């Protein structure tokens, strides 16, 4: 593994995006716009919005980074750049971590914008403060990137890659506690939710919303999210094979 090559890969990925200003604009504008829409959807019950807005902040980076990473890696595969890289003196982790760092950074910037809008313009009260909110969102971005790198190995086409979003992420969204408190769900779904990483991202942001101090649950949540992310990255370096 080489730090130089890992960071060169992050820089390269970010530079690719910088040549695509529309994608960058959407990354930063879509989440705050969606949050604003949600605020007015819950116009009659503002308390509900205050509860779910921070959780949404944990799901946006996960969903978006998952999608961009899946498509990005699939493009590397189909264009031949991955073939080329895999014959070069690099470690697969240089490639994977390069992506993870680039998109976590992007997730960080996205969270910065979204949480600023949420707290200062939409008036959502987050007991744990802005910094903790961003930490929660960045961990979700990292997880989304790792999952995207992993699953893209199984996609043969862009159509399949895009479908992995509803297949892998939607079920997690449904049962993560965003729609209804998890203890109100059928028991088997609660069990399922307990082993899904997004549950812990969302729980982390719930902890941050309700507690002004750092809780042990929050520590557990973040450890789970980051550990699953690292685990999936390692799995991904197995699924992205040098020899096919």
């Amino acid at each position, binding site marked *: 593994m*080489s730090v*130089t*090559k890992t960071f*060169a*890969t992050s*820089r*390269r990925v970010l*530079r*690719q995006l910088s*040549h*695509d200003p529309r994608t960058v604009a959407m990354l930063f504008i879509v989440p705050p716009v969606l949050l604003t829409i949600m605020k007015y959807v819950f116009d009659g019950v503002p308390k509900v919005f205050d509860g779910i807005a921070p959780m949404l902040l944990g799901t946006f980076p996960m969903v978006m980074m998952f999608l961009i990473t899946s498509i990005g890696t699939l493009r590397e595969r*189909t*264009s*031949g*750049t991955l*073939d*080329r*890289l*895999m*014959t*070069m*003196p*690099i470690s697969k982790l*240089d490639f994977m971590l390069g992506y993870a760092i680039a998109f976590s950074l992007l997730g960080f910037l996205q969270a910065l914008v979204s949480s600023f809008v949420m707290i200062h313009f939409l008036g959502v009260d987050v007991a744990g403060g802005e910094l903790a909110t961003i930490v929660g969102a960045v961990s979700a971005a990292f997880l989304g990137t790792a999952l995207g790198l992993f699953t893209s190995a199984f996609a043969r086409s862009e159509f399949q890659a895009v479908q992995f979003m509803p297949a892998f992420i939607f079920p997690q969204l449904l049962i993560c506690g965003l729609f209804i408190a998890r203890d109100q769900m059928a028991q088997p779904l609660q069990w399922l939710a307990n082993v899904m990483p997004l549950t812990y991202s969302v729980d982390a942001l719930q902890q941050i919303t309700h507690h002004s101090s750092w809780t042990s649950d929050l520590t557990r949540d973040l450890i789970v999210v980051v550990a699953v992310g690292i685990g999936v990255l390692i799995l991904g370096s197995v699924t992205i094979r*040098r*020899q*096919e």
Partner: protein
Amino acid sequence: METAIKIKNLSVTLDGSFRALKDISVDLPVGQAIGFIGPSGAGKTTLIRSIVGRQRLTAGSIEIFGLPAGSVQLRNQMSYMTQGLSVYPDLTVKENLKYFATMMGQPKKQIKAIVDEVLESVDMTDKADALVSNLSGGQKQRVSLSVALIGSPKLMVLDEPTIGLDPVLRDSLWKLFNKLTAKGTTLLVSSHSMDEAERCDDLVLIRDGRLIAHNTPDELKNITGTKTIEESFLSLVGDEE
């Protein structure tokens, strides 16, 4: 003659049933332009992928400079230009080259000089700051080739490097190839075009996953009593059937 690549009883089966390569054995010399010639679908790309270590071998072995194909030690001695674009369309020419030079492990201080040098070799200096996606097909091809030149590898494996290029450009690339082999670089070039074959020093004719001949262009024409490689190919295929 010194051997660069030693292929012994190589067979590759793709997707569990398609026999892409069938029992190929051949020794390829150092410092020559070796052409893998055959119709599309003959197995050229599979053979190339096997040599660069991207393809798992079903049977047999490949040794490159005495090391098994895919060895870690080979990775900074060879380069691979795939049939696809294999550069990033949403980066500029220079950004692509800098990135790949870094990944090839070139020292940071030398990267600028290396980038300038390889761009010069493919005559793309004036397009250094253009986005690859805005270039013409032939220009993209040359950018991709320039990446393969980084670090002056001992072995360059080029899958259809001159496909779709105009004759003038193709001629200038062959001049570059000849310069490289004169310096001792071993060049592996695949092509489905028979007139390309005339320019190689050494030819490997492939059809239907099988090696049908390995010889110099002149010898091939002598043996088959033909005037062009295309005729030799047809005559060899006719003998087989």
